[in-house]
């Protein structure tokens, strides 16, 4: 293959197992699998087909530039992780510690800009009126009771980036599997309906994908088994969904953007290590928040902006700033320093979004396989568990010398999953969040009922697609921003090529953010402080717009407003896309309001790079 030949041939490599995406699910899979591939004396416990006499050749490809890309601080029961590592010492994993104290705070609105329903305003007034007898402090009510299913007792606070790195170190030291970051996968390879491997992304192409000098077609990695753990917006998982459809009654409609920062806590902060604070009620009632205290005076602070928050302009970053400035949090954070920042999409349909878990030649694990429990707000524990269950099944099939057919994988993996606690708890949670389709109060009541009745009683209705809920900008801000002001803001933002969101939030009464250069910084500065956005040259843009005219007619342009990295800008017809700012959160994928025939006008494809920050 000539380096500069646009007609360069695509090369092929054969392995036994090819894996896509290195997150907690893949960590569980590879850790468990690696332990069973060789005997204690180094001889193969099971045999490779591509390298006879050797253990199976297992390769994992990850899009991000490093294996510590994970953008999550989590509080998790960590049952499955501790089952894999019974002697786990959290001090060996940077930023990990035991959960020691849990609190849930209902945050009142201290600035008067939050958009609250009449029911919530009534609740707020009642709380303020009864302040003398309630644990109300700093505009926050500490809930006296939190149901058992929400607790993370005995669990761990983790940085997923650090956990991933630590797991990768253990795996690489064993030498049984190979992990390759910086290797985006374009999609699955099919032979009929059988998955026979994956194709890596082409390199040496222009932004629109046309071959350029140095063109290198992506390698075809052929394998008997393809393990897909590329998360909720991964290209391989979505391609499988497109090709195979979803099981009856299953769909992916509920989402959230998780946006968080890691903060060096100020000396004045008295929160002990291991503290878990969960919040609801502010900055908007639909937005949930958290603060987890890691070792060495650092904390993860963040919010979740769900798809059922109907604002067409919902950049999570500005809301995150108002969240940290709430008096109940600011008293702990004032004087602190942002160490890193990040955002990611979270698939919140849970078991309802479970795709076809297996087929001939493939199996799916983790968040993209619908493992997240939407009632207990837990994903890492479940994702890891699905990985370990698959690995046990794969080892069983290897030992019995059975091929990776759909039937065999059903028996070896899916049957294990169905018998597990992951499945049992997922069934309880399946409809737990349906109430939020009708409002926050109904949603909270619905969660409580689902949790307390073991999923037998649920409120609400089946979710609709996010784009079916999104109002126009004018409709959403009616009564809060005068039409003439809105028109002026539109014109000013269009002239500057800027998103509407910051200006509209200010017009709707949200105070300006008093930048202090260390904790409260501009969105662009957060991108720089948060690590480094990697956008290696020679790859095509992964965000594209099918028909610019459709974008031109789109009034909401939610993709521009929701973009976590300000990478999508208004543009002339179709929005502009700047790959060098994209953190690959994937929010634009499910926020495009221009959907025809089930296909969004905005395409989020396989891409290289993203935020490189191990500290998340």
């Amino acid at each position, binding site marked *: 293959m000539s380096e500069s030949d646009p007609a360069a041939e695509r090369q092929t490599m054969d392995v036994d197992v090819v894996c896509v995406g290195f997150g907690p699910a893949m960590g569980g899979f590879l850790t468990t699998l690696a332990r069973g591939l060789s005997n204690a004396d180094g001889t193969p416990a099971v045999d490779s087909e591509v390298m006879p006499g050797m253990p199976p050749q297992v390769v994992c490809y990850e899009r991000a530039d490093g294996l510590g890309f994970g953008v999550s601080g989590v509080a998790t029961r960590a049952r499955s992780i501790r089952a894999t590592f019974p002697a786990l010492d959290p001090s060996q994993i*940077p930023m990990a510690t035991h959960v020691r104290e849990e609190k849930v705070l209902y945050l009142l609105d201290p600035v008067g800009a939050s958009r609250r329903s009449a029911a919530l305003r009534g609740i707020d007034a009642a709380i303020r009126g009864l302040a003398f007898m309630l644990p109300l402090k700093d505009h926050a009510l500490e809930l006296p009771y939190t149901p058992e299913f929400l607790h993370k007792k005995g669990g761990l606070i983790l940085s997923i980036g650090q956990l991933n790195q630590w797991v990768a170190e253990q795996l690489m030291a064993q030498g049984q599997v190979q992990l390759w970051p910086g290797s985006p996968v374009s999609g699955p390879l099919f032979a009929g309906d059988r998955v026979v491997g994956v194709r890596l992304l082409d390199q040496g192409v222009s932004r629109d994908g046309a071959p350029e000098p140095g063109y290198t077609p992506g390698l075809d990695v052929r394998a008997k088994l393809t393990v897909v753990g590329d998360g909720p917006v991964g290209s391989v998982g979505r391609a499988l969904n497109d090709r195979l459809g979803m099981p009856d009654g299953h769909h992916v409609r509920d989402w959230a953007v998780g946006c968080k920062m890691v903060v060096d806590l100020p000396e004045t902060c008295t929160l002990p290590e291991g503290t878990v604070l969960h919040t609801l009620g502010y900055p908007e009632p639909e937005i949930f928040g958290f603060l987890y205290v890691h070792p060495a005076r650092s904390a993860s602070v963040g919010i979740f902006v769900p798809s059922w928050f109907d604002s067409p302009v919902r950049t999570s970053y500005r809301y995150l700033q108002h969240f940290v400035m709430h008096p109940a949090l600011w008293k702990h954070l004032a004087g602190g320093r942002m160490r890193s920042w990040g955002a990611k999409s979270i698939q919140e349909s849970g078991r309802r979004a479970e795709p076809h878990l297996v087929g001939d030649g493939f199996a799916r694990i983790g968040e993209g396989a619908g493992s997240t429990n939407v009632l207990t707000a837990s994903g890492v524990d479940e994702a890891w568990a699905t990985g370990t269950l698959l690995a046990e099944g794969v080892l069983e099939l290897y030992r019995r010398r059975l091929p990776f057919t759909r039937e065999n994988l059903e028996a070896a993996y899916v049957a294990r999953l169905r018998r597990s606690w992951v499945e049992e708890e997922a069934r309880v949670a399946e409809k737990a969040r349906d109430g939020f389709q009708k409002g926050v109060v109904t949603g909270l009541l619905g969660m409580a009922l689902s949790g307390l009745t073991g999923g037998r009683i649920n409120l609400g209705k089946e979710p609709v697609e996010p784009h079916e809920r999104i109002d126009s900008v004018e409709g959403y801000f009616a009564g809060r921003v005068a039409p003439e002001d809105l028109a002026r803001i539109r014109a000013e933002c269009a002239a500057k090529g800027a998103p509407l969101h910051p200006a509209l939030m200010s017009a709707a009464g949200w105070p300006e953010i008093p930048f202090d250069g260390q904790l409260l910084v501009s969105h662009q500065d957060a991108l*720089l402080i948060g690590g480094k956005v990697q956008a290696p*040259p020679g790859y095509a843009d992964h965000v594209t717009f099918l028909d610019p005219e459709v974008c031109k007619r789109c009034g909401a342009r939610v993709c521009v407003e929701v973009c976590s990295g300000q990478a999508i800008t208004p543009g002339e017809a179709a929005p502009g896309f700047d790959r060098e700012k994209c953190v690959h959160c994937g929010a634009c994928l499910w926020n495009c309001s221009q959907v025809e025939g089930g296909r969004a006008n905005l395409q989020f494809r396989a891409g290289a790079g993203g935020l490189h920050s191990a500290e998340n």
Partner: protein
Amino acid sequence: MSQGFHIVVCGGVVPDPLQTLEPVAGPALKNELMLPACLDPWSAHALWEAASLSAKAPGSKVWLVTLGPKAKVQQVMMAIAQKVAFELVALDGPAGGFVDAHETAAALTGAIEGIAGLDRSRLLLFGGWESASRGTGITLQLIGERLGISDQFQGVDHLSVQPDGSLEILERVEGGKHQVSVCAGPPATLGWATGSLPEPRNSPQMGMQNMKAVMPSLQKAKSSPVGLGGIEYRSVKLPKAQRETRIVKDVPVDEIASEIVEWIGRD
């Protein structure tokens, strides 16, 4: 040069640029093991140049000699091993830039001297002329001196091998110009600036081939206790900074300059 070159690239593992580096007691950095790391960008240019030169001169071989925390080196190798062919020689020690350059140079020199089969008469010692960690810019020169290499070049952007085997080298000098030098041939020390080669494409096959040797090399990495030479960095003080970043494209430089001047004038 019918036999080719033996090219030793000295390259440190450093936190990604833009991270704030703070020393803690001893030679380590605050949160060193947590910071995302990469091969020092200046050394990376040297490595790409070494691989390119090696490909053009049959019989050549490239070693990458690095001193850093083993776990971090391993992470970085997952990315670098996909780029070019090399053999890793690793030393396990702190790499944050707050160690004394003389100690680092001594450790790296020892590692180079221990490379089996290295032909010193064919040796080209490559590295960055700067570092993204703290940037003393002298480590490579010290290694060259310890190895007895008298031909040293810094700020190198280009190296070409002449038909007679001599090396023509372009070094950066003032005014955006290059100084052209010719030396008879190896051994020579070249501290690279940016060179002229782009970062190579990822090659999964190359990665798998390299990794077969990288992991054993990491397992054999000797502990290298640099930073115990009596120098202690107690703290760093960063200048007060108010960030107001805007990322723009396709804006004329005059316009950008005017805006910066106006911004500075606000104080």
